[in-house]
């Protein structure tokens, strides 16, 4: 009896193929029951997300036989009739455990170190557990995988930092202001990116949002969606006395805010710190404003550069994480408890 995994992910298959093999949440218990009824697996769990579909199984068959049978099961169950090359990957112990630990830690994710997969894997495991499709072996493997993921999160920089423009903007705001809930945000231009950035700030505590746009209707609509208020476009400079963060993304061909305009506004603000996030192209804010004291200006390239740097930092950590994972897998297997305990429980 050993743990095997078969599946396809963003690394091996395009989205068109992944969606053909994806399992709807409510169909998973049925698929697990069918898999066990076939005698292919004594324990099993299915992970199905937008980036991967994987079957984890404890099988009495040899690895080669198990892979062939699991592939047939997957194709038949999902009624797939197309051609299939090497999009499907399969691992036997110890590589299957290594893969499981990597997936749990976000090392195999599209955005390295992302944490969403941890929750998705946990849900997949809990679903299998709730329907009694797991046993001692899979329980131990999954629980150890969750522990390893938590350990890597604290012991390495694999999940450190923001890897998207929006989250980089939020992190910047948190480096300047102590409590975001006490600060007001002005959204200049009701574009999609500024809306996402405003929402990201809201998720970290921002309560007051003011929206302005050349089209008052769009400003009002976005303000309603964000639970804020709309102000006429010609009046946005008046808001600078109250706000502390401004997100600008208008389609203006020239900068709408320059040093000469901002300097007197900063005096009226009594030089309170001001974070300006300019995500417009061409830029809305003249770079010269950053020479003013207490003004922090970041444009879309700056934010992207932060996100890229973080991603590189995470990539540098991958080797360290792989080493830790290898040690943890070896510890799990070499103690021999993994196999013996599992088999004893099965008896």
């Amino acid at each position, binding site marked *: 009896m050993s743990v095997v995994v078969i599946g396809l992910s963003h690394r091996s298959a395009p989205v068109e193929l992944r969606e053909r093999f994806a399992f709807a949440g409510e169909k998973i218990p049925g698929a697990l029951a069918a898999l066990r009824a076939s005698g292919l697996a004594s324990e099993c769990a299915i992970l199905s997300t937008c980036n991967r579909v994987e079957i984890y199984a404890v099988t009495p068959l040899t690895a080669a036989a198990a892979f062939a049978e699991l592939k047939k099961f997957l194709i038949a169950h999902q009624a797939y009739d197309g051609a299939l090359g090497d999009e499907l990957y399969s691992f036997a112990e110890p590589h299957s455990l290594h893969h499981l630990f990597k997936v749990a830690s976000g090392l195999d994710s599209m955005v390295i170190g992302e944490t969403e997969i941890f929750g998705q894997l946990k849900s997949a495991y809990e679903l299998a557990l709730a329907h009694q499709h797991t046993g001692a072996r899979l329980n131990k493997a999954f629980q150890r995988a969750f522990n390893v993921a938590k350990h890597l999160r604290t012991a390495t920089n694999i999940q450190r930092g923001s890897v998207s423009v929006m989250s980089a903007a939020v992190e910047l705001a948190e480096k300047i202001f102590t409590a975001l809930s006490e600060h007001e945000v002005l959204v200049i231009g009701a574009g999609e990116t500024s809306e996402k950035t405003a929402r990201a700030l809201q998720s970290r505590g921002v309560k007051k949002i003011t929206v302005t746009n050349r089209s008052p209707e769009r400003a009002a609509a976005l303000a309603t969606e964000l639970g804020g208020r709309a102000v006429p476009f010609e009046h946005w400079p008046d808001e600078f006395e109250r706000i502390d963060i401004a997100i600008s993304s208008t389609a203006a061909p020239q900068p709408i805010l320059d040093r000469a305009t901002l300097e007197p506004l900063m005096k009226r603000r009594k030089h309170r710190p001001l974070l300006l996030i300019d995500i417009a192209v061409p830029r809305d804010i003249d770079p010269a404003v950053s020479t003013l004291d*207490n003004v922090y200006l970041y444009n879309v390239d700056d934010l992207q550069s932060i996100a890229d740097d973080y991603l590189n930092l995470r990539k540098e950590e991958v080797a360290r994480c792989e080493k830790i994972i290898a040690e943890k897998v070896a510890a799990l297997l070499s103690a021999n408890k993994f196999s013996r305990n599992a088999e004893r429980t099965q008896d």
Partner: protein
Amino acid sequence: MAWFTDRHCFLLAVTFYGLSTLYSVFLWRKGFRRDEWVNYFLLAAGVALHTLAMFKRGLTLHSCPINNLYEATTFLLWTLGLACLIYSLLPRFKFLAAFTAPVLFTIGIFALMPSLDPPHGLKPEFSDALRSLHAATILQAYGAFGLAAVAAAMFLMQQHDLKLHKLRALLSLLPSMQRLELITFRLVAVGFVLLTIGLVAGWQLPRPEGKPYFFDTKVLWSALLWFIYLESLVAYKKFGRTSRRFAIGIIATFIFLLLTFWITNLYSGLHN
């Protein structure tokens, strides 16, 4: 153990400050990324030994040990070290120790110069409660100003990194700019109140015939500091002085304080 005097104890404390300074260099190079306690405990060991040194000296004198330049300097450093340990317990303020340790180490080395600690007998003349209050509050005020300068230095470093879009600003586990600014202001305000109390207490002290209080070098110097800190607080709070200028002013004033503290003492009729 009779040979082990309070000065040996202080020497050991300075050694720990030195170790903490060395470790701080490592933390600076790493960009303050890891939340850890090593530097805090090194500094805590230094402060503990420092406390023991002052306690031993106090026991010998049967009074608060602030009677010559060595004692005054060690008291100032002790206040700074202790305040740093307390403030370091605030969320994200653990790295305060990395900024404070170099100050404690360099001034600690200076304080160890034998000429700063002339023998003054077992019972110094100036050992009554009011004099102790005067000296202790003023030195505590300097400690608060010192810690304010440290927080201001952290603020300027963060501001520089954020302005220049350095990733280090985001990676470091330093407090937010706003928090550093607030802590700096509060420490200066506390120091100012203590300095005021100390100066008023000094005014009440009996003086030798013909020596007016406000014509003494040290008193004039202290009054100058009092005005500088008052101006900084008022300009920052009431007249919109930028946080950067406020921080630079606080650091510059503390450097001035450190550089002139000993000289003005030497030229002071009331303090010699």
